[in-house]
């Protein structure tokens, strides 16, 4: 049994790589969405300024 367990491949690097790929995909996606949210906020500010400008006119 001990001999058998010693012959098991030590592939923890591959496991870490697989989980890091998953993490990178999720984080990458969230980062892209955050950039889009920032753009959206910029557009909202622009429209708010536009509305305020018209209100003053």
């Amino acid at each position, binding site marked *: 049994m001990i001999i058998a367990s010693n012959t*098991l*491949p030590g592939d923890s690097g*591959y*496991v870490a790589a*697989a989980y890091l*790929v998953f993490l990178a995909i999720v984080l990458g996606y969230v980062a892209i*969405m955050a950039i889009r949210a920032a753009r959206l906020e910029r*557009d909202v500010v622009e429209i708010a300024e536009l*509305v305020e400008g018209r209100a003053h006119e």
Partner: protein
Amino acid sequence: MYGKGLRPLSLITCVALTGAFALAFFYAPMDADQGISQKIFYVHVPMAIVALGGFVAGGLYSIAHLRTGDRGYDLKSYVAIHLSQILAVGTLITGSIWARASWGHWWVWDEPTLVSFLIVFLLYCCYQPLRFSIEDPERQARYASVFAITAGAFVPLNFLAVRLAQSYTHPRVLGTTDGLPAKMALAFYIAVVAMALLYVTLWKYEMASKHARNRLRSIRRGLGEDIGLTRSASPQ
């Protein structure tokens, strides 16, 4: 209001994913045959299942779009397919890593499961070029829906064909999980649920973003402004 309930859903997703991976590493027993590399199973297979489920969901939303003519369903279908493509990339990469660790090869061409998944992925790679090659929004939505329904119907057919085919190296997961030890099966099912929750959270996240953007665009139109908002390739 796609943003409604997004905060609790995000928290539940974080807890579920952390719990699922903790169970995979600290509760599920080490596989006697593959050792630690079998732990990739708990991220690779749930990602594949959820990606394929998302493609089918995209097809179902497209059916709703063609039946009702509501462009909202087209947007839902687009986001579902877009997210599934991202998960499919993850499935292919983690699958290759697992194959390298277990079989000594990054890819095995005579294995029906791997090749069929690649075919499904490549099929959906045609979705966006097809969609954005059409300028008229109505026609774009209609053609994209027809594609999504056809490709979505192909997914379960492909799944069945693969299960009927003789497997050489890739293990069969669904239908054979009865053979998994109870602790492994529990960790696996929780990982599938956590991955599905992640998918739903990101789908709602993107839908809320696109919905807000479209609302903003219509407000700007209402104000009589001709200044375009920041460019986006997504449907409206």
